[in-house]
């Protein structure tokens, strides 16, 4: 039986590895991307997972179409678009607008880790819903972004739940790295040789201090 990592695609083949997947300890992680054991699905189930119909999505209430937080990201992305075209002055102006909107995001009442966890979990279903729409439209670009983001969202929830279980010791003596291209979060002494999600080389990772 083969088990496949839903984050990086690593294949755990029970035949060659010699240890049945079920007998691996709970704290076993993907040798490639450090995803936890529950991110692996049996090879045939992986196909099923992909075909799963839309999940029930909780209604987002009073959601403005483009709230300040979205405008902040929209304009910091346009700043990157200007930067890539070597328009450094335009980049600076877009950053100024992005910073304005970032500061304008209202405080969220009752913000705590468990609310963060709930939103992260909701986002997994929002990614699923968006992916269905993008697939129906044949929008490859959107599918690309949603594939990356969906994987990252799963990693986020698993790191958060690990922290909820183990507290500070979950991240003791270990560095946290963020892929500056796709936002993948990796914990370890050194960043991976290539990002398991978007495949950029290790120097694109930045250490969180």
């Amino acid at each position: 039986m083969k088990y496949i990592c839903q984050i990086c695609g690593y294949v755990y083949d029970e035949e060659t590895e010699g240890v049945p997947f079920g007998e691996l300890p709970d704290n076993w992680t993907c040798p490639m991307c450090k995803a936890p054991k529950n991110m692996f699905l049996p090879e045939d189930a992986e196909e099923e997972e992909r075909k799963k119909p839309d999940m029930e999505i909780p209604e987002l209430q009073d959601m403005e179409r483009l709230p300040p937080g979205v405008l902040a990201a929209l304009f910091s992305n346009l700043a990157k678009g200007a930067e890539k075209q070597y328009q450094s002055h335009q980049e600076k102006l877009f950053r100024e607008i992005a910073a304005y909107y970032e500061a304008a995001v209202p405080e969220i009442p009752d913000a705590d880790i468990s609310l963060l966890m709930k939103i992260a979990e909701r986002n997994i279903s929002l990614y699923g819903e968006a992916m269905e729409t993008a697939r129906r439209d044949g929008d490859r670009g959107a599918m690309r972004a949603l594939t990356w983001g969906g994987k990252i969202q799963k990693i986020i929830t698993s790191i958060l739940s690990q922290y909820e279980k183990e507290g500070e010791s979950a991240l003791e003596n270990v560095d946290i790295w963020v892929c500056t291209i796709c936002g993948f979060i990796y914990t370890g002494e050194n960043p991976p040789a290539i990002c398991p999600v978007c495949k950029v080389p290790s120097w694109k990772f930045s250490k969180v201090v």
Partner: protein
Amino acid sequence: MKRIAIRNLRLCTKDCLCLYVCPTGASDTEDSIIDTSKCIGCGSCSDACPSGAISLVPAEYPAQQRKSEKVMDVMEKLAASKASEEKIASMLSADESAPNLKRLLKALKQSARLSAEDIMREGGYMLPQSGNSLSLLSRLADEPSQGFPKEAAKELLSSIRCNDGGYEPPSAMYKCERCFTEFESSSGDKAVCPMCGAEGNHLKPI
């Protein structure tokens, strides 16, 4: 199609063949960024570069892929939810005293922003010069919320030329003080008197 050369500084090993082959000196700059106003797009530098550090890009970018309303809709909804994730992580990390959780929250904040940027990039706002981006910017600048950096928005709107017909800069009337001609000029273009060719201080907006 006119092209211009760009240099990837990460790959550049300063073999400097581009300096030898460039007919206009565009690649010889103190900051290593190719001077796009001098570049004629001949491609000699990218052909000669032994490290593959120079590539040619179009001077005017093509229109970005059109997005359906439905895709834009779900992407905006998802981006809004990622933005909440970013905000909560940001608020919590500011007050957190446990060092490892603080680092984790900072990582989550960075990651959420990168994902939201990517979602909006694929949700119809990839290029600064697209009609979507420019008309949004112009709407925000027309009815600015308090403290909105209006000057920055105006400067962007007048310096970026739309590449897909989705945004028309408003036109303005000028009077030429040299020949007294009154004329209309699109605010995206530099105003020039159609009668006598006067520019700059000779023209007064009316």
